[in-house]
C-alpha cells in the first residue's frame, strides 16, 4: 500500500510552476522531478504543511549523469540531486529530484529548514562540486580542506602528489618480473 503517491500528486498540484513530473510512481519511493528554482518552495510545503508532515530528511544524494557513446568516450550530462523525505505518521517516503547543468551546478540550500541538510550538502559539495547557495557552512567534510578537485565526478583526474606524498606507488613485483 503506497501511502506516498497521493501526497506526491497533491504536492505536484500545489506547486506554482507546472513543470514538475512524477517518475517511479509505482515504487515505494515515488519521485517528483522539479526545477532547481522551485526547490525551496517544495521543501517548505513538505515541512510546514501538516498534511504532509515530512519532518525527517533521510538523505541528500548526488549523481553525475553520463552517457557512453559508441566510440567509448563519455558524454557528461550534468548532475542530479535527490532529496528523500519521510514522515513518521505513516512511514511514507517521497523523493524530490533536481537536475542541474554540467557547468557551475548550483542550487538553493535547505539547511535552515532541516538542520541535518548541512552535512548532506557538504558531502555533495565535497565529492561532486555542487554549490549550495546561501548555505550557512559549506566546506569540505571528508577530504582535507586543501584538496583540489571533486573526486566522484566522472572526469576526475588525480593530482600527482598531495603535500609531498605521491599518489601512486610503483609495483615492486614489476621489477622482479621475468620476461
Amino acid at each position: 500500500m503506497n501511502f506516498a503517491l497521493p501526497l506526491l500528486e497533491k504536492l505536484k498540484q500545489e506547486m506554482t510552476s507546472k513543470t514538475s513530473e512524477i517518475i517511479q510512481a509505482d515504487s515505494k519511493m515515488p519521485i517528483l522531478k522539479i526545477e532547481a528554482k522551485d526547490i525551496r518552495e517544495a521543501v517548505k510545503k513538505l515541512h510546514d504543511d501538516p498534511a504532509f508532515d515530512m519532518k525527517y530528511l533521510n538523505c541528500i544524494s548526488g549523481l553525475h549523469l553520463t552517457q557512453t557513446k559508441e566510440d567509448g568516450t563519455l558524454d557528461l550530462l550534468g548532475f542530479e540531486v535527490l532529496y528523500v523525505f519521510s514522515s513518521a505518521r505513516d512511514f511514507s517516503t517521497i523523493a524530490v529530484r533536481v537536475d542541474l547543468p554540467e557547468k557551475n551546478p548550483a542550487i538553493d540550500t535547505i539547511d535552515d529548514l532541516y538542520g541535518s541538510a548541512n552535512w548532506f550538502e557538504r558531502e555533495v559539495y565535497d565529492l561532486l562540486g555542487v554549490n549550495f547557495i546561501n548555505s550557512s557552512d559549506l566546506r569540505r567534510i571528508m577530504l582535507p580542506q586543501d584538496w583540489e578537485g571533486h573526486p566522484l565526478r566522472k572526469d576526475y583526474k588525480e593530482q600527482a602528489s598531495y603535500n609531498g606524498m605521491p599518489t601512486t606507488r610503483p609495483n615492486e613485483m614489476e621489477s622482479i618480473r621475468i620476461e
Partner: protein
Amino acid sequence: MLSEYGAVLIFGVLSIGFIFVFLFLGKLIRPDRPNAQKNSPYECGEVPVGNAWINFNIRYYILALIFLLFDVEIALILPVATVYKEWLGGDFGLYALVELLLFVAILAVALIYAWGRGDLNWVKGYTYAENKSDSQDSKS
C-alpha cells in the same frame, strides 16, 4: 650510640646516591635529539591551539575540603576507646559515649549546613539563553 647514627647516615647517602647514579647513567646512554615537533604538547596528533593551562573547577576544592574535615573527625574518633580507658573500666562508660556523640553531632551540623547550601552538588545547574528554543527545528 654514634655508630647507629652513622649507619643511618650511610643508609641515607646510599639511597639518594642510588637514584642519582642511575639517572645519570641513563643520561649518558640515551639518545637526545630534541626538535620543535618533539617538544610540542601532545594532542593526539593535532597541532595544539591555545594555552594548555586552564582553570580547574572550584568544586573539586570544595569537596576535598569537606572530605578533609570529616577525615580528621574520623581520625579523632578512633582513639576514644584507649583515651577513656579508666572510665570504660569503671561506671562512666555512658559519659564517654555521650561525649563522643556530642562531637559527632557538632560536626553533623556542619555537614547539614554544607549540604543545605548546595556545596555537595556536583551538577550546579544550567542557564539557558532566553531566545533559544529547542523544540522547534525550523527558523521562520
